[in-house]
């Protein structure tokens, strides 16, 4: 599995190796490269700060407050995960034609990545020790003080995991930054293909991107290791009492509504208004075909990611060896690569595979590879929740390793594992660059249809496809956030760590 996730890296090293060392050095040390690294880093930092701040606020509000119909609040907070960043960008440009530049990109990527952080924080909060909160309150700590002193330190690793995913996504994004004219590493990579068809130079810059993402991955590991010392993971956490404070409730609802307005309603409004000002006949057959294609290949991708991540998740949750540390880094770092690079890497290897090339299976496999990190991250977190004691008891009762896995570990970890699969499913549905290269010829997904209409400004014709994509994405989101589940929904026990 780790070897498979090494394909893109291997490809990049082969391509970069075709260039003379002097040229590589010239490329790396020109002023432009430093500027682009600076822009990319600044963009990532800004997005992380914003998503961190608002993600924590929203998650805390959803977790601690007595709010009516929580599921209906969680959905808009999570749904934008399924909206491609280029759809955000196109619709915002249609809304405000002069919408461009660095801060516009920060804004769009903030909208796109906020759900990662919100979800991770929700997962962390569900495991916060309520007794500590009560102690703090009884000592006369205010709510905010209790939150900063008691709660925040406990969810630090989850927060860091969510920020990592948001940061890596920001690094890999091309749709938003290219349309908004912000020069990041992915834009430079793409420009090298477009401007000079220079694949070797693009490979060199991709390696720079990988290095940058490695720094973030290692930083996240640091945070996690610090926390693990002396941390006691509760197998059952006592639910803290819900807070009844109207000012908090109003601001939380306001915050989520504003987010929903910016990230869901305005894009939908633009799509609908474009559709209704210039109505076209919808080809239902095409729409249905694209929906089925999208759902099936994304499901298959999620399934493959699930299968691939089970052994990895177990390995990573059991003990920390050099091998497991290196593997998790490799998987996460791959997350920062733009889809074009992964796509071309798989084209390079896949075109030698005969009939397998440009098959639905290879496309699903590409999705699994692209989004493995999401699945492994949530699986690892939930496998860690399985108390070692339970496994030992089961073993002394004579169950062999597989039966322990089947009867003890899997049931406890299932919600988190399911969340991982859903995250892969949601992001695979909107994936574009690798889909364009690897889908079977003539096979259209919702994302490729949206792209092909939006590319010629036919938002009116793209609208039905975008709306269907949002509706399909809402279904698993809704199922997972139903509050009547035993543990307040699977979202709370999965992602993070």
């Amino acid at each position, binding site marked *: 599995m780790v070897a498979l996730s090494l394909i893109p890296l291997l490809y990049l090293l082969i391509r970069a190796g075709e260039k003379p060392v002097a040229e590589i050095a010239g490329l790396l040390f020109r002023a432009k490269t430093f500027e682009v690294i600076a822009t990319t880093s600044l963009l990532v930092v800004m997005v992380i700060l914003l998503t961190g701040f608002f993600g924590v606020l929203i998650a805390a509000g959803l977790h601690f407050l007595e709010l009516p119909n929580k599921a209906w609040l969680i959905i808009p907070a999570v749904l934008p995960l399924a909206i491609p960043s280029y759809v955000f960008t196109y619709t915002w440009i249609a809304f405000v034609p002069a919408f461009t530049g660095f801060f516009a990109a920060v804004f769009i990527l903030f909208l796109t990545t906020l759900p990662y952080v919100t979800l991770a924080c929700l997962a962390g909060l569900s495991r916060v020790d309520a007794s500590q909160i009560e102690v703090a309150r009884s000592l006369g700590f205010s709510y905010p003080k209790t939150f900063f002193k008691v709660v925040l330190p406990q969810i630090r690793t989850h927060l860091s995991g969510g920020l990592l995913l948001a940061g890596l996504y920001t690094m890999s994004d091309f749709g938003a930054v290219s349309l908004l004219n912000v020069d990041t590493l992915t834009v430079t990579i793409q420009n090298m293909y477009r401007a000079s*068809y220079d694949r070797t130079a693009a490979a060199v810059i991709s390696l720079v991107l990988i290095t940058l993402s490695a720094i973030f991955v290692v930083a996240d590991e640091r945070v996690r290791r610090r926390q693990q010392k002396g941390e006691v993971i509760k197998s059952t956490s006592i639910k803290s009492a819900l807070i009844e404070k109207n000012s908090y409730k109003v601001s939380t609802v306001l915050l989520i509504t504003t987010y929903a307005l910016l990230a869901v309603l305005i894009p939908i409004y633009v799509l609908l208004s474009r559709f209704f000002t210039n109505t076209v006949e919808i080809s239902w057959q095409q729409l249905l075909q694209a929906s089925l294609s999208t759902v099936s290949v994304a499901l*298959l991708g*999620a399934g493959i990611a699930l299968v691939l991540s089970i052994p990895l998740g177990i390995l990573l949750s059991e003990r920390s060896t050099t091998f497991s540390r290196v593997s998790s880094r490799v998987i996460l770092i791959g997350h920062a690569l733009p889809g074009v690079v992964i796509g071309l890497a798989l084209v390079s290897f896949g075109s*030698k595979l005969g009939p397998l090339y440009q098959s639905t299976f290879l496309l699903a496999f590409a999705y699994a590879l692209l989004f493995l990190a999401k699945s492994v991250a949530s699986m690892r977190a939930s496998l860690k929740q399985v108390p070692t004691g339970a496994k030992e008891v089961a073993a002394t009762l004579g169950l062999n390793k597989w039966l322990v896995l089947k009867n003890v570990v899997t049931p406890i970890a299932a919600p988190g*594992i399911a969340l991982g699969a859903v995250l892969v499913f949601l992001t695979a549905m909107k994936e574009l660059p690798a889909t364009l290269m690897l889908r079977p010829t003539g*096979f259209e997904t919702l994302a490729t249809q949206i792209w092909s209409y939006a590319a*010629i400004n036919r938002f009116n014709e793209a609208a039905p496809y975008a709306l269907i994509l949002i509706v399909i994405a809402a279904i698993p989101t809704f199922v997972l956030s139903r509050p009547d589940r035993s543990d307040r929904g*699977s979202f709370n026990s999965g992602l993070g760590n």
Partner: protein
Amino acid sequence: MLRNSLKGNNLLVMSKVLRLGLLSALVLSLTTGCSSNSADSDQVSELTIYSGRSENFISPFLTQWSEQTGIKLNIRYGDSAELAAQILEEGSNSPADLFLAQDAGSLGAVAEEELFTPLAKEVASLIPDQFNHADRLWVGVTARARVFAYDPKKITTLPKSISDLTKPIYKNQIGIAPTNASFQAFLTAVIENKGQAYAKSWLSGLTANGVKIYPKNSAIVEAIDKGEISLGLVNHYYTWEVAQALGRSINVVNGYFTAGDLGNLINVSGVGVLNSSNKKQAAIDLINFLTSIEIQGEFVEQTHEYSLISSVVAPEDLLALDKIGAPAIDLGSLKNIRATQDLLIEVGLL
């Protein structure tokens, strides 16, 4: 013992999901027929096309040919440059028989790696040589002209040359899209013909004149329509395309600079046949179809692009191609735009 029913359900759902995904993918791979036929040239049953041209514009013509010949077409739509990169990666393993691209640059990249087969004089014989690759590794299909789109109520003195755009009468009124490939091809022509120094001072002059930056051509046209700016540098068909997309007429018309000015550059979309194809004859038939007088006429009508054949009438409301006064530029020279991008970066427009 630790199993509880809810969590057991979750697992059940997961395995169902997996099975469902596998099943539907199996069905799909059967129905979409991803296996390619290795028939020889006299009994071709299908042809694979990589198309950088939008589905909306090109598919009616391709369907028409497919119905006429009974040859099934597998068409892969994508971005021209990315499809070119994909073909370069696939090399001799490419499943594509034909590559249709938006611009000469993408075709040039594939031609340079010797992945195209040279086309005989009889192929696309009506297309004038100036619009084809010098060794006929690809041929032109349609033309797009660079123009200035403007609001006729606000712009009363029309610019005669791109150099007029730096004059104070156009202050804060002009829009450009520096990331756009067509703009960069135009700027490359400026650098090649008037030199780096001129191009740099022209761009700086535009910046000093308060030029506004847009992400793409259509955004410029929409901004003129909304009154944010009054004039912008775009390809000729965007005024038509935006009006079509909005479903109404807009306050924007096309204008041309004086004959010979670089602002009137003409670029082409084109097509080449892959060396690795074993269905070259069928591919050539399709090229001849696309470059026939009849289909070129329909192209003009439906996509609002120019035909490269002078006897085909220009799109409605547009100056005929040979009346535009396009500068004499070798399109092959516009392939490498790295110097252009470096310049745009230097003056702060990229």
